[in-house]
């Protein structure tokens, strides 16, 4: 029997990362209802890490460009106005890496974590499906955290 981290687990891990590096306040990031109902909008940004090994799949953080900019500003201790594309890519990649690494340790291993990739828009992984997803509200906007699994390995 394989334990797949629950949506609550994704939330706990993401909150730990957000609290530590962005907010200092655990109440800053809260569950925001059903992930299915969320529409991030046309300017979505996705930070993504892939896992291969005992588990094959991905962990993604998806949010609007303004959330990504705010997160980068908080991580770099800059004002959002100073943040450029470079900081957004670095920050969202590192945030995905931290969430991904901690999710990985709950999955069947050993698995290898890829370097993070950050893209504009939504990422579709061929042959993979979302197995867990949670919508979190941060500063009034939404952040989607999802765990993907390669179909061939799905139970």
């Amino acid at each position, binding site marked *: 029997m394989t334990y797949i981290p629950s949506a609550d687990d994704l939330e706990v891990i993401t909150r730990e990362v957000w609290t530590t590096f962005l907010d200092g306040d655990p109440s800053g990031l809260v569950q925001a209802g059903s992930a299915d109902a969320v529409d991030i909008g046309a300017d979505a940004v996705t930070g993504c890490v892939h896992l291969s090994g005992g588990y094959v799949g991905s962990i993604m953080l998806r949010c609007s460009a303004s959330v990504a900019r705010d997160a980068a500003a908080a991580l770099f201790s800059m004002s959002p106005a100073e943040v450029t594309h470079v900081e957004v890519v670095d920050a969202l990649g590192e945030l995905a890496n*931290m969430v991904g690494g901690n999710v990985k340790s709950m999955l069947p291993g050993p698995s290898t974590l890829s370097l993070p990739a950050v893209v504009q828009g939504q990422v579709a992984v061929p042959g993979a499906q979302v197995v867990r997803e949670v919508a979190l509200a941060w500063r009034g906007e939404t952040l989607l955290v999802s765990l993907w699994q390669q179909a061939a390995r799905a139970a």
Partner: protein
Amino acid sequence: MVIDDSSAMRLILGRIMRGLGFDVIEAPNGAEAIARLQSGAAPEIALVDWNMPVMDGLAFVNAVRKEEKWRQITLMMVTTESEQSQIVRALAAGAHEYVIKPFTPDAIADKLALLGVLAY
């Protein structure tokens, strides 16, 4: 020396280390860190990320431990890799300590004190 491919993380760790009284140099991957060492940098401690392009943190630890002249460098992994098996691998390769991301400044200070590079 702070070795991490994320400049945000280098900034955060650099700020913590400067706050603790260290001079800080940075490298974005293991290969550049080795190059800095070869050109004479002699850090007391290296904080090492695991997943980095070109040369990852584990390879860096292995490379440093092979060289007698770098024996004095204390190596501390600071990484999101958090399986027990990975921690054991890093310690076996020669890392002295291991901090899992996310971390607080206190955690870094605690570990440095454990290693004796920082007074309690």
